[in-house]
């Protein structure tokens, strides 16, 4: 279902939310965002009387706690992220849409991601119209518009030193079981290298909320992250 353009739009424009700073070449294009949303429509509804489909409806998604829509079906991983404190701020949505696995490795959202900054920016401009309380619409932060937000995907993870990774994994196995059990603490065995690297980088940068994982990830170098990924891909 499409929504009528809400009355909010002029005030957003007046507040400068959608106009962008002069240095930013890319103005957000709501109409274009609406067209991009077609890719989401089979799973997500937005606008008047929006309902949950395969994924939750997206009304008032901005600043909503992850996995908090009544009646929607969420993965265990998304529920965990929500309880950890993941909120759909503009930054979080931007990073998530870029590749859902950036933020939630085990998400049900089967979408390979939206690479282009301009696409994400327009899509979010469109979605922002349906978060009616302006207090719930955070300022567009510098990280969204001035940089290609997640540098989580640089492919430096393919040649990790698995033996070093095995040593480093000693810090993981105090909590994450080496047999892959997934109760209370998620399993990290048998992940693909990109998923593993992306997850640790996201904790490192604070995109993912868990304080223990943020602390552990912060002191891992890129070499160490690659080593762990190389080791864990073969653990099953």
């Amino acid at each position: 279902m499409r929504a009528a353009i809400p009355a909010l739009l002029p005030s957003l424009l007046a507040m400068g939310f959608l106009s962008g700073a002069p240095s930013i070449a890319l103005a957000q294009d709501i109409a274009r965002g609406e067209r991009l949303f077609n890719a989401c429509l089979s799973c997500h509804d937005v606008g008047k009387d929006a309902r949950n489909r395969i994924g939750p409806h997206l009304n008032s998604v901005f600043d909503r706690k992850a996995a908090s829509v009544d009646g929607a079906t969420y993965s265990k991983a998304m529920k965990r992220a929500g309880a950890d404190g993941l909120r759909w701020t503009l930054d979080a949505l931007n990073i998530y849409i870029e590749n859902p696995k950036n933020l939630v490795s085990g998400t049900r959202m089967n979408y390979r991601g939206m690479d282009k900054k301009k696409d994400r920016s327009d899509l979010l401009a469109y979605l922002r119209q349906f978060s009616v309380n302006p207090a719930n619409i955070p300022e567009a932060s510098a990280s969204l518009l001035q940089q290609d937000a997640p540098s989580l995907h640089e492919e430096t993870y393919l040649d990790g030193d698995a033996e070093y990774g095995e040593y480093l994994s000693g810090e993981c196995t105090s909590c994450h079981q080496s047999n892959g059990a997934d109760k209370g603490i998620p399993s990290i065995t048998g992940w693909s290298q990109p998923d593993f690297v992306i997850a640790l980088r996201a904790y490192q940068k604070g995109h993912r909320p868990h304080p223990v994982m943020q602390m552990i990830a912060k002191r891992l170098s890129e070499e160490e992250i690659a080593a762990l990924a190389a080791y864990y891909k073969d653990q099953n």
Partner: protein
Amino acid sequence: MILNRRRFLGTAAASAALLSSPVALGQTRPRVVIIGGGAGGATAARYIAKDSNGAIEVILIEPSRTYYTCFFSNLAIGGFQPMSKLAHSYGTLASEYGVTVVHDWASAVDRENKQVRLAGGDAISYDRLVLSPGIDFVKGAIEGWDVTAQNKMPHAYKAGTQTQLLKAQIEAMPEGGTFAMVAPPNPYRCPPGPYERVSMVAHVLKQRNPTAKILILDPKEKFSKQGLFMEGWENHYTGMVDWLTDEFTGGVQRVDPNTMEVVLEDETIKADVCNVIPAMQAGGIAQQAGLTNDEGWCPIVPATLQSRMDDNIHVLGDATQNGDMPKSGFSANSQAKAAAMAIRHALIGSRAFKPRFSNTCWSLISPDNGVKVGASYVATDDKIAKVDGFISQNNEDDALRKQTYEESLGWYAGMTTDMFG
């Protein structure tokens, strides 16, 4: 990685072939003897055996055939875990990892001859010794209390029999009775432990005996996760818990296990259950071996956990004076991996990496209400030094607290698998 039997035997056979070559003629595998099968010792045994693929002989000396973890024993008192869940055996370490498990007491370390003597009469020589003896109580720390009084006034600070006893006493308390805890001075095993225990006792009494009172007689001015515990007691056990420091009471002068009295400076408290947790020092074998300092703890080289008194001995866990890491099972497990790597490097030349340490302590305050505190550490020349840390916040929402508790259950499974295989 679980070392499967075929791989283990395969490498053992390969090592045997190597040993029969002229170069190694007459040599045997280097031997590591480990005293104490807790979070430090069991982890060290498993990691040395696993990562050396049988090239190092590992002998673990631990008197108990069934080991009860201290961590989570408060949850047994609170009724959140059955005692049986705390029990672990050493069978997998023997069958899957080739560790020789000797159920005996190490009665002495002969450092000159690099031998451990056992109460049963045997002597076992070592190339490297790992000492992970945990804590013992300082004798005479609390006047009137010694181990013969531990049935009347349990410490329940070594899990198993004592845990079960204290739990039974709490459940049998008369209506409106008094539970008194004599809390320990710093440093001691499991900094949040006494206060998690109070939370668990309060939970039990709230259900069974809601007019009962809990008194904490504490020599410390502050304690671990204090804000979180106090908030929890206020919210969930309103009016049940009194925390009294020495400044207020003048300190515990003595206890009388026969009359169940705790004598303070100007007042005597009659308790129905009295949990005495005396001051602690490194486990007795470390004292005997001459590895302790004036304060009763074992100073160590941060990067390798080697004793400052003896390069051939590594000390782990609660017994160490290491700098910033707290005395916890998690810390001991973390230290064991650094020591295991240093030992493999020294004995068989395997790769050595920079050691890294971390710790997290979860505590349960009330049902589905878990909190945690933790930190990461590095080895400097002087000490194991804290680099970063976190703690749960006051007023967290219920879903997060529940998740934190569930996370602790997952951690317990992970930690015990990491120790025992």
